[in-house]
């Protein structure tokens, strides 16, 4: 009988974490900011068809970095979960917190039980109401969940962008200011310049009723970034 090689659990998990981190850092960044108009989500994405930012429910948006097929599956599962819950109970019973917990559990299980961990990191933004503040959750490949505020960044060289934005974003920035700050951050990250076309942006709009998620067209992004008022 052959004995399997012994690998200590510590080593095994560390290897998996490293593998996942490598996959995630290869990609490009996504930033989520709280702005006066609501919650702004901005992704560095060269594709206009394959989105990294998406609507989950009335006041909840999703952003994912890493392996496309994996975060796309997570996104779809989130929409199914939210729509089912909203249909069986009521639309207001769908909360970002319960979704974040569900994602955390799923990613945690995948990390500890599967050979290959998921190479994704996701952000979940839940637009607050008058009696409830905004919620932003960052959920990592191992299921660890972070409750963030004001600014949250995932993917690519996220630390660099996060430092850049944390230094500059103040409570009460406008949508226009927030978007141009993130764009400066992208420019900082890429020495070879960063075309406006590579910006995918969407907002959870405070002034909207019902479905608050709105995706900006490339033209709108260009207009928001232009200097004229």
């Amino acid at each position, binding site marked *: 009988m052959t004995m399997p090689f012994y690998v200590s659990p510590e080593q095994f998990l560390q290897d998996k974490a490293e593998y996942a981190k490598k996959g995630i850092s290869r990609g490009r960044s996504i930033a989520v900011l709280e702005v006066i108009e609501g919650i702004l989500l901005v992704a560095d994405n060269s594709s206009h068809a394959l*989105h990294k930012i*998406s*609507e*989950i429910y009335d006041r909840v948006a999703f952003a994912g970095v890493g392996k496309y097929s994996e975060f796309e*599956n*997570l996104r*779809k*599962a*989130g*929409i*199914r*979960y939210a*729509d*089912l819950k*909203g*249909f*069986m109970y009521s639309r207001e019973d769908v909360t970002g917190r319960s979704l974040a917990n*569900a*994602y955390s*559990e*799923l990613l945690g*299980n995948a990390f500890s039980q599967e050979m290959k961990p998921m190479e994704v990191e996701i952000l979940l933004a839940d637009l607050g109401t008058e009696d409830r503040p905004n919620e932003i959750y960052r959920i990592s490949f191992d299921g660890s969940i972070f409750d963030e505020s004001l600014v949250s960044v995932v993917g690519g060289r996220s630390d660099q962008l996060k430092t850049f934005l944390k230094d500059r974003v103040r409570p009460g920035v406008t949508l226009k200011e927030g978007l141009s700050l993130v764009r400066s951050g992208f420019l900082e990250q890429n020495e070879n310049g960063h075309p406006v076309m590579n910006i995918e942006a969407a907002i959870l709009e405070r002034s909207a009723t019902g*479905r608050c998620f709105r995706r900006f067209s490339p033209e709108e992004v260009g207009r928001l970034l232009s200097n004229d008022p």
Partner: protein
Amino acid sequence: MIPFREGSLLWGGSSFVELLHRVRPENASLPSVVPSGGGERSSSVFSGSPASVPVWHGTTVLALTIRSGVVMAADRQASEGYQVADRAIQKIFPVDRSSAVAIAGAAGPAIEMARLFRVEIEHYEKLEGVALSLLGKANKLGQMVRDHLPLALQGLLVVPLYAGYDSRTGAGRIFKYDAAGGRYEEETFHSNGSGGLFARNVLKMLYHPEMDETEGVSTALRALYEAADDDLATGGADFVRGIFPLVHVIDRDGVREVPVTDVSRVLEEIGDRLKRRVTP
């Protein structure tokens, strides 16, 4: 937990109806689980004759195309036999930014169908990242009506009327259905429900394709007035309680409800004109 592996409950395509069927197999609005002749699963709702189960019914709903889109209107009364069950129910449900569905028939399953339809359309749009075409949505509703056929045969008939603004053709479109799920497009106007025939006759007299929004709304309200006048189960304007028919306008700017003040003003004008005609 959100399982999304193949074979798990939350795996699958872009249809919410199918998802609901997998998660909640006993869902009665789906055909495979509803016994067509009573059967073992039958409850009092399924096995009783239609008359033995008190069911609320909604009545007159109508839609007509105007130059810029389409106008939809419905009365507010739900009836249970010869009694008023509710004076202010909603029979028009906005589905998305460009269409709405109006329901007539057994109120419970009809409202459930409208809710399910709305989620179905939104679910598809979110998963696929692109909205269904108006015709695609109309066909989907047809499938849902057909799925409901076993219940319809047992007395819980639901007949929706679907209308929307088609951005591809730049015009309003109306779809009517039969109980078996048949979908028929109507280019001018249609109305459903117990007072539907009376409303349709009024529309037949007054309709012309070049109507603007104001004329469309007043024509719709006149049709509802006549329906309420001749049909017991259709509610008229209630100036005492301040309950008025619901009117929605759908055009390129979206779906919007006509304010109650406007509806009541138009109804008063209709009333004044009619008074002059009948009093000597």
